[in-house]
């Protein structure tokens, strides 16, 4: 393969992609399940975001180290196993260290393994580039996901519950609907539209 000759993009470019132009949630619309399900508070959103971030970085790291060893024909199963290992490890660590939060988001932590975003970063990036850029790519993408999770969580918690990080900001609940199950869909839809609007404004 001639991919090794490809020039890896600089870190700033990778970060920009992760946060905005290729944001996993708002732009690629991948790994949406937790983005809707566990973002009814900042704490849960942050925890989930951190877990995905860690799994992404660790998987990118592993694949980048062993990329010359992995046979091309079985690369997808191997990626899956690598992700599953890190997810299970993350799952057990969280269960041991933060049982309270784990009882709320445990199922979704386990389901990280089916996230298209992680395997697509491995296939598109980590299998082609050396160690450092691969880790930086995983780092940026994971951070972009984390950012989206915390943003949605913050909006839903403040507007829906009147609190942030469990601390009461406003006595009343302005829009209780937002912490309800369906509120997650609306929040993401509106945020996507807002992002479109901002971008449109920039190009005009």
């Amino acid at each position: 393969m001639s991919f090794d000759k490809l020039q890896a993009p600089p870190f700033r470019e990778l970060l920009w992609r992760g946060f905005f132009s290729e944001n996993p949630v708002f732009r690629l619309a991948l790994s949406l399940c937790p983005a809707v399900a566990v973002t009814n508070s900042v704490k849960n959103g942050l925890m989930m975001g951190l877990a995905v971030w860690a799994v992404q970085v660790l998987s990118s790291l592993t694949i980048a180290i062993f990329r010359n060893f992995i046979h091309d024909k079985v690369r997808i199963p191997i990626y899956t196993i690598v992700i599953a290992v890190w997810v299970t490890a993350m799952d057990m660590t969280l269960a041991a260290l933060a049982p309270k939060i784990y009882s709320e988001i445990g199922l979704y932590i386990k389901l990280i393994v089916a996230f298209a975003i992680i395997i697509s970063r491995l296939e598109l990036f980590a299998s082609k580039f050396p160690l450092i850029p691969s880790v930086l790519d995983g780092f940026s993408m994971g951070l972009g996901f984390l950012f989206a999770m915390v943003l949605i969580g913050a909006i839903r918690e403040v507007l829906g519950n009147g609190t942030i990080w469990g601390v009461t900001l406003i006595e009343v609940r302005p829009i209780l609907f937002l912490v309800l199950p369906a509120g997650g869909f609306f929040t993401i839809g509106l945020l996507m539209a807002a992002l479109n609007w901002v971008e449109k404004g920039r190009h005009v």
Partner: protein
Amino acid sequence: MSKQATLLNDHQIEVVVTKPGVPSPSEFRLTSKKDPDILIPIQEVNVIPAKEGGLLLTTGVKVDPKGSYQLIDTRTGAEWLMAPSLFGVVITVLLTAALVQNFVFTRYLGLCVFFGVSRKRETAIGMGVTFTVVGTLSGLLAWTIDRFVLHPFRLHFLQIIVFIGIVAFLVQMTDTILKKINRPLHRKFGIYVVLITTNCIILAVPLLNALNENGFWESLALAVGSGIGFALALFLMSCARERTDLAPVPSVFQGLPIAFILAGLFALAFLGFSGLKI
């Protein structure tokens, strides 16, 4: 063991006894399967005139109409078991998974694929059917392996890796078999089969089965129910999206944003099912 005892509601039991006469409440022994050491008090015993030997027992505390109970007539030693029928349990699990706790609209699983393939009605149906079939197979295979290998050997920490392996294996197998046996069918459904790996519902079903220690029929019902629920969600969504494609949607909302708003509306509508008692 006779079967003529039924739980009418949360405090009444109808039973047909062979010995004539009206027994006193203390001559019955009512216990739940879960707590056999706790006697459930019976407040009064009334005769049902229309039925020979028919008695109506009123319990002193609430009983669970969906629970299993044992009733003994201490005069004759006759024993009755009251348990929900297998069919009832299966239907309950199935409808719960499909409607009340729809995997897409109330558990928010499988969203990536959901938004990806719900643009056209035709693809939605294709994906729904394929997913239900493969999901059922993988649910059963995963249940078997979990029950007979992982559980006895205390290997539950390998659950995730084993379940994803099963899914990958089944997807590959279905794809190959379909290609060999029925080419036209493969041309139509092959693409959906490959997409199944990234649908988290297929992984959530065995994980939930393992977590709740479901038996064979419950696992089967959950797998089928989740498939039907997913297919239903896809179909509804695709119908709505085909219409929004023709509607004058504001430009910043075109594409995914309006789809999310639609999904939110559907989720609200499905909230209406949740009061449903099956």
